[in-house]
């Protein structure tokens, strides 16, 4: 029954490659989070304060990002846009699909955050002589970030996990790298077992760091 010999040596040999690929994963996830936060904030504000086509567009973005598989979005950015002549490198495909996805999910989080802040805050800030921009950046948005801190942390974890889909468009991040390596040695299980451990560690580090950061940021 159990006549399979595990070969860990090739995996251990390419461990540096895997760790380097892990950095690529982190980089893509972090970049897509930054882009996602900026666009997500904009989408949430547009959906709350604007009317007409701009609002429809923002709503369409959010609903599409939330109601279709991330893999579909990735294929769309990869193959779909390729059909109309927009060719991108795997890195850009994954980054744009992930940012699209993150922005949609974050927009809903931000909307909840904005709604949790009473209107009086904005009016108070305005009557203190702040401009709209100032009252948002100095009064409202800092409070929103406090409210959405935990959803935001979860979203970072999701971004790391979702970036694994990159392996299906030939992107050599933490999932694509072992796939490429495993196809050479055919030690698929061993490679992906180690990869899973690396993902787990990355996620735990992110969660731990966010907890430490929360303790530091949110003491009153």
């Amino acid at each position, binding site marked *: 029954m159990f006549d399979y010999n595990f070969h860990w040596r090739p995996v251990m040999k390419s461990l540096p490659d895997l760790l380097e690929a892990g950095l690529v994963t982190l980089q893509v996830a972090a970049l897509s989070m930054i882009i996602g936060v900026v666009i997500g904030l904009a989408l949430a504000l547009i959906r709350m304060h604007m009317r007409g086509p701009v609002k429809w567009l923002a709503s369409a973005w959010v609903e599409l990002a939330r109601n279709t598989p991330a*893999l579909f979005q990735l294929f769309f950015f990869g193959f779909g846009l390729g059909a109309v002549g927009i060719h991108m490198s795997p890195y850009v495909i994954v980054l744009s699909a992930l940012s699209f996805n993150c922005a949609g999910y974050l927009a809903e989080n931000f909307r909840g955050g904005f709604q949790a802040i009473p209107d009086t805050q904005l009016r108070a800030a305005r009557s203190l002589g702040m401009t709209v921009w100032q009252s948002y950046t100095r009064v409202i948005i800092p409070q929103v970030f406090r409210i959405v801190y935990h959803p935001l942390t979860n979203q970072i974890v999701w971004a790391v996990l979702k970036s694994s889909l990159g392996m299906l468009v030939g992107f050599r991040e933490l999932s694509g790298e072992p796939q490429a390596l495993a196809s050479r040695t055919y030690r698929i299980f061993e490679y992906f077992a180690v990869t899973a451990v690396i993902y787990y560690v990355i996620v735990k580090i992110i969660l731990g760091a966010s907890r430490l950061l929360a303790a530091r940021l949110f003491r009153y």
Partner: protein
Amino acid sequence: MEPTVSFFSGFQPSDLCFLAEAAWRTLLISVLSISIGTVLGVVFGWMIYEGKWPADLTLGAVLDVFRSVPLIIQLVLFYNFAPIIGLNLDPFLSGVVVLSVYCASLVANVARGGMEAVGLPMRRAARSLGLSYWQDLRFVVLPIGGRAVFPSWVGVALGVMKDSALVSVLGYIELLKASQILITRTQEPLLILTLAGAFYFALSYPISRYAATLEKRWAT
């Protein structure tokens, strides 16, 4: 490069049937995995809730692994691990197993949250009215806690439905894999991807909207 994309050449009506059949397979694997995963997840959630910290450190930690490793890695790992221990599962069964466990790990969290949402005084009141432990679970915890977390459960279920697209990496021909096959043949990624995306959207959007209205109604 041709400046115009002709949408309808090469795509035949019979391909629609192929897509519809694949959509049916997506539904099948989703419903099956969500059902099994929900039952398992509620049991796990109850065990973690009742087992206090020892259960959280063992079962909780194991379930946490499934939430911290990308689903695609879990699929590849399981698909390659099963033959090692002498199980020869086809892609469908492997997909169901992995998706169910993944779903269960997410539902366990939700279920535990639901049980915690029911106040201890309420439980004590139920017990002192003469309800047995199981009656208390059935007639007090299930209606109150279930209602509290129903929207998050819908979110998890829809997430698993969307994630079922990943089973395509094992070769199971669900909707996204079918659309890839068609794209390879017809070279019309935009049309086919739009069809596939529309199916996911048509399934996911009404349900998520319905859950949102329910949440709003129950909140008041």
